[in-house]
């Protein structure tokens, strides 16, 4: 069986660490992992995404995911969740951060963009009970470090059960991926309800 995951957000939100944690936990269980990242020009404020694929032994050749194939979309920004939604499987899960990141172009032109219509659209499109809206920024800020947004959201994704990984699986590998002095903070962020 293969689990397909899409991570998406805006450059600088920390999608890379989240995908590294998922990969490390999956490998620890003997699964094979492939992923594809956006690196380069698109990072500077552009929309970014990662594809992560985890196989328990089924043949897997490419790191990329096709339309309608994602078991779960983990979105760091609601508009980006909408952008990547065509990749979601029927009955797939969507975990989305609720805070919109306004692009500079929208500020310049004064054109409106906010989270409301994005979240409403997700509510209409995603199967009942399969959409989780997380105010990740407030949760991260409450922990005193906005940078742990990625781990807060990852916790919510793992708790859906759609990834074939448990909270323990992730907690066990955190020490391998995250620096000692940030470990406690990240553990707290990950288990935050």
């Amino acid at each position: 069986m293969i689990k397909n995951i899409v991570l998406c957000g805006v450059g600088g939100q920390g999608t890379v660490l989240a995908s590294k944690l998922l990969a490390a936990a999956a490998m620890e269980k003997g699964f094979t992992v492939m992923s594809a990242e956006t690196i380069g020009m698109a990072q500077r404020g552009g929309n970014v995404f990662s594809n992560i694929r985890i196989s328990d032994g089924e043949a897997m050749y490419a790191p990329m995911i096709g339309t309608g194939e994602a078991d779960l979309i983990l979105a760091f920004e609601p508009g980006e969740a909408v952008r990547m939604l065509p990749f979601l499987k029927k009955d797939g899960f969507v975990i989305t951060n609720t805070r919109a990141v306004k692009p500079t172009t929208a500020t310049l032109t004064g054109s409106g963009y906010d989270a409301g219509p994005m979240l409403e659209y997700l509510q209409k499109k995603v199967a009942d009970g399969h959409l989780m809206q997380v105010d990740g920024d407030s949760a991260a800020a409450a922990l005193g470090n906005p940078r742990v947004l990625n781990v807060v959201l990852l916790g919510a994704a793992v708790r859906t059960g759609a990834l074939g990984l448990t909270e323990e699986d992730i907690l066990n590998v955190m020490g391998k991926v995250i620096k000692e002095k940030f470990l406690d903070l990240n553990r707290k962020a990950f288990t935050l309800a």
Partner: protein
Amino acid sequence: MHSEFLMGNAAIALGAIAAGVDLVAGYPGTPSTETLENTAKYRPEGLYVEWSVNEKSAMEVAAGAAYAGARTMVTMKQVGLNVASDPLMSLEYIGVKGGMVIMVADDPGPISSQTEQDTRHFAYFSKLPCFDPTSVQEAYDMIQDAFAYSEEYGTPVFFRPTTRICHAYASINVKDADEYKKNSPEGFIKDSKRWVIFPRLSNANHRKIEARNEKLKDVFSEYPRNMILNGGANAGAADAAPEVSAVQSVTASKKGIAAGGISFALTMEALHGRTDARVFKVATPHPFPEKLAVEFLTGLDEVLCLEELDPVIERELTYVCGKYGLDVKIRGKLTHDTANAGENSLDLIKQYINSFLSEQENVAVVDQAAIEAPQPPAIPIRPPVLCAGCPHRASFYAVKVAMKRQKTIFCGDIGCYTLGNAMPLDMCDTCLCMGAGINIAQGVYRIEPDTKAFAFVGDSTFFASAITGIINAVYNQAEMTVCILDNSTTAMTGHQPHPGTGRTMMGEVVAKVSIEAVLRGIGLEFVETVDPLDLEKAVDTVKRAQEVPGVKAIIFKSPCVAITKPKGKAAVDPDKCIGCRKCIREIGCPGIVINDGFVCIDDSLCTGCGLCALICPVGSIGGEVHD
């Protein structure tokens, strides 16, 4: 052997180390950069790694070391190969003693490049063998093969991954340190008949090269990474060692698919076990494995070629059909069955394969449910922009203010500062290739002498390829202002050191090459260094430069915000702000946002550069900012 989760570029680096590479040189360029960085990170004792000043230097350094019997690798992106093509084309005739791998990363899309050029053509043009990996694991294994072939045949070889190999991650099997090949270079043996290129030597070696490539066609037909598969039925990942070419087990299908690189991996995903097409995996697009191609084509009616960039496999197969009189229809880009530009996604490959293998014409099915479904709201476009606090924004703004209402041309160059083209700055009128802006500005000035010509160039680009252009301007008496945007790093590719930083890739602290001293040495009299965040002084410097004839240089010096601690955070005093939004209109900083109709500073982005505070007409922006 052990298993590791590695980026493709890290896998290539570790593969080269496992092959006993002695020297690695390169110039940063997406998507190739992390290869050299990882050779430095995992550097075993005795391996020398350098960021060269440009790709031509890197190629020549690697060639010299390979003359001395060392195993060498040179890394660059596809457009970097254009810079290195002069030594490349001659090195082809001279050859090497130690194995030399030219790792050139192609960028279909393009995602972060000027061109969609195909390095497989360069392999054909320079008559060098080319290896084209289809996955991260294969990249690790194949680069070791590439070193072995290079050494066996005394020629540099190309290793050409694309973005989706370079920047993919996978859990792969890698060797332990005690399994690495140990190499002891013999040293350079003087022999002017071998190492000095003269027409007579070139003529003799040209004949040898053509004969060698004829032989390599046969050798590569036996290379196990070139293979024929029975559709998607071959169990196991593409990375598993193949069981010879499995022609005998191929079904009676009359259709075949030929693919290379990531398109092969996507083909195997799309086939998902179906066996109604014979598959030809092309690992060495040059020299083309002709015998194996004939074996693949024999008995087929039609073949679909799936590859990115140019139709290299498609042309080779069409040629093979003509040469051997095979009645097989070859389809792909040349027949407009597949797109002739851009990346291949899994969706595209599935679509190509489905319409190729289905018996009937595709009938458009009207999906009623999709029509009735709620339509998505407009999703914002997010073009890349200069970071909040980026000193380039201030440099561009200073020139813009100083030159207001004058006839100007602003020639840009390659780096983060190309993003100065975005509104509202709009300070990049041309951008072509590394270092070109300096000369383009001179060309425009020759035709329109009343235009104030400016060229903007970054510090790393200055060293890579701007110096000759400035000498050209001085020698030929041009009128122009060169603006060097010195942020003390190679920012766009991820902060590599360069000659001006005083650090090398091996971590040594060395004397900095002074940009100002170089410019004075060339003969420029007006050379001034200014902090762009001191707006008043910066504007004044630009104005004063215009009063001096000839070639002037201004070095805008302020470090990249991504590698320095923020100076603080700006803050808007809501009682003073009159809501004119001049700050937003003038500089377009992503750190200035509008919340509920009020101008605010986004604390998570602001670095306290203070530029907005200098622009505010009523002094409403304060906080901790640059002074």
